[in-house]
């Protein structure tokens, strides 16, 4: 089978169709890469990045984490500090007026959690010792649940809260 030595010398050869397929495949993948690059850098899609590190044992003792909740930065911009712990978010309700841009800061004082704000692009891993940060603009009034989407122990399924976006200004 493989023992018969042919006169031909070894060479890299591919069938013409196969070559065409390789070109198409590479073209397709490069198109995907460009799409991601444009989305990530030109259109400003954000993913969480590297923020400050904290000590999970003491983080809740000092500001800003000693008073979790909403901070009004003016101009319709807010910072929301949310602590995740087995099996609740603190605070469990956040109320903002429609049109607000809210930057969420999350950390955990025990195990890993998740923070997914339903029907938005906010979806973060919450890791003890780290701070997760993403911003979202609320263009419509309504109630948006945030749920823990990383297994954190027996009561994981009940861990949730909600952002109430009010039609008229005056929330906070």
């Amino acid at each position, binding site marked *: 089978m*493989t023992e018969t030595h042919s006169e031909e010398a070894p060479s890299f050869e591919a069938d013409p169709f196969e070559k065409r397929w390789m070109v198409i495949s590479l073209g397709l993948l490069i198109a*995907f890469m460009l799409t991601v690059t444009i989305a990530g850098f030109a259109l400003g899609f954000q993913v969480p990045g590297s923020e400050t590190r904290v000590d999970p044992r003491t983080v809740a003792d000092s500001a800003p984490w000693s008073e979790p909740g909403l901070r009004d930065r003016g101009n319709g911009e807010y910072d929301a500090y949310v602590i995740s712990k087995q099996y609740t978010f603190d605070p469990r309700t956040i109320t903002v007026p429609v049109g607000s841009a809210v930057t969420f800061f999350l950390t955990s004082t025990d195990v890993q959690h998740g923070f997914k704000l339903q029907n938005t*692009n906010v979806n973060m891993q919450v890791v003890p010792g780290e701070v997760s940060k993403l911003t979202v603009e609320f263009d419509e009034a309504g109630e948006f649940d945030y749920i823990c989407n990383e297994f954190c122990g027996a009561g994981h399924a009940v861990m949730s809260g909600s952002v109430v976006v009010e039609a008229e200004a005056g929330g906070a």
Partner: protein
Amino acid sequence: MLTQESVYEVTQQDRRFVGAHLLVAIAALSVGSLFGPLQAFEWSGLDLYGLLEPIGLGDYYKGLTIHGVLNALVWTTFFITGFFTLVMIAGLKRPLRYPGLNRAGFYTMVVGLVMAAIPILTGAASVLYTFYPPLQASWAFYLGLTLVVVGSWIEGYGFYLTMAEWRRDNPHTRSPFIVLAALITMVMWQIATLGIAVEILTMLLPAALGLIDGTDPELGRTLFWFTGHPLVYFWLLPAYLSWYGMLPKQAGGKLFSDTLARLAFWLFLLLSIPVGFHHQFADPGVPVGWKYIHSILTYGVAFPSMLTLFTVVASLEYAARKRGGQGLLGWIRALPWGNPVVSAQLLAGILFMFGGIGGITNASYSVNLVIHNTAWVPGHFHLTVASAVTLSFFGISYWLIPYVTGKPLWKEKWATVVNWTWFVGMMIFSNAMHVLGLLGAPRRTELGQAPYVPDEWSGHLFRMSVGGAILLVGVALFVVIAARTAFQKERFGPGEGVEFPIAVSMRDPQLTPLWLDRFKPWLIATVVLIVVAYGPQLFEQFSNASFNSPPISP
């Protein structure tokens, strides 16, 4: 019977050794699979865990841990090492150089499995198969998993030493493709598992033993996913080995290109590992630039899968046309669909195409945030590890069990039923899971207890549980066929039996360039790429590590 050139007949001892791997693998699958539908039913409102409370299995997350560990880790690792053992022996036509070494590896894996199973069953390790710190399981869980991995390394060493001896005796011959494919897979596994080994040995095990007060959870995630993504290629490449190196023969044809098949495997070695941050797009503690680089490299690892699609389909078309198949796509009907070995792999390949498309979505730096930690993700990997891999392993089992036991496959027609049942069940199940994920349903959550489930999910939840029920029927039938085949009295008569399937390449493998048959250049490139893509972040995360997150039992 092997081919006519055979100088070495696979011995009874070899066969029993391979069979022992399969026994553990299928036993694990049969237990682990029971918990999948329980989860599906719980999601759709039918909570059966109360019935299992008297036997200590009433906890959803204990069941989820059992399902993940047994199906994703034990079924795969034992099946793969057993299958590869036979690939080495029958592919090189020589015995293992040090059979004792391979035996030691196997028994190490078995000891590890038992050691990990005890805390899992007693509820001291309900941390799921990702065991993210600071969730803390019993030390026996971590040590057991470590032994399973180390045992698989030892079996790998046995393969490398057998290959080295063959290479010495055959310096100018291209190594058989299937043997090269198995070795590349084991080498990739060996490098990839260093991440998890460092995580367990420097953090999880010392914390479990009380030697350190805490761990660094983000560093733990980085080390876990160094291993976690190549882990899926460790599952997938043995199926690819069969699709390239055996399926063409089983379908009545030849391997379309030996050269491209080898290239694909080398590219998997090169690109499987430096892509782990695409599992951490939603993580804090990893700079966005590194996430972006891994996103781009992940598109790179899709390339060898695209090559595989071409070569495997071309090989199948050749086989089908030889069998009289006609037409642009009509040839597909001429494939031997009645042979369950073939239909399992064909259906696995079809499901995998959907899995691959979903994988491209997961890899996308930005789009990933829509689906991260949602039901989409298990929906995706049930198309990969639970379809491309598991259904292919079903197909391989239909010849491998008869091969190692010397007994004919019990009720071949029922094996065909298994394949189609799995295919239909998985289509329903995974489609529902993908949709649920897009709607925001979280993965690995006891959803029946959750206060936030909207009405619009309920139809999909029901559909998902119907899929799960169908899959349970499929796997139960598979286990019955496997057991009835192995434990029946009937044996092959003289002249009967199963041939070890090796697909011949259309072009003489001797014409494949030498650089596609040598480890050195590819190993160097692999290490260099890992250092470039992971080195700076690993250095950064290790230098800034704070082991200050105290362990917490779930």
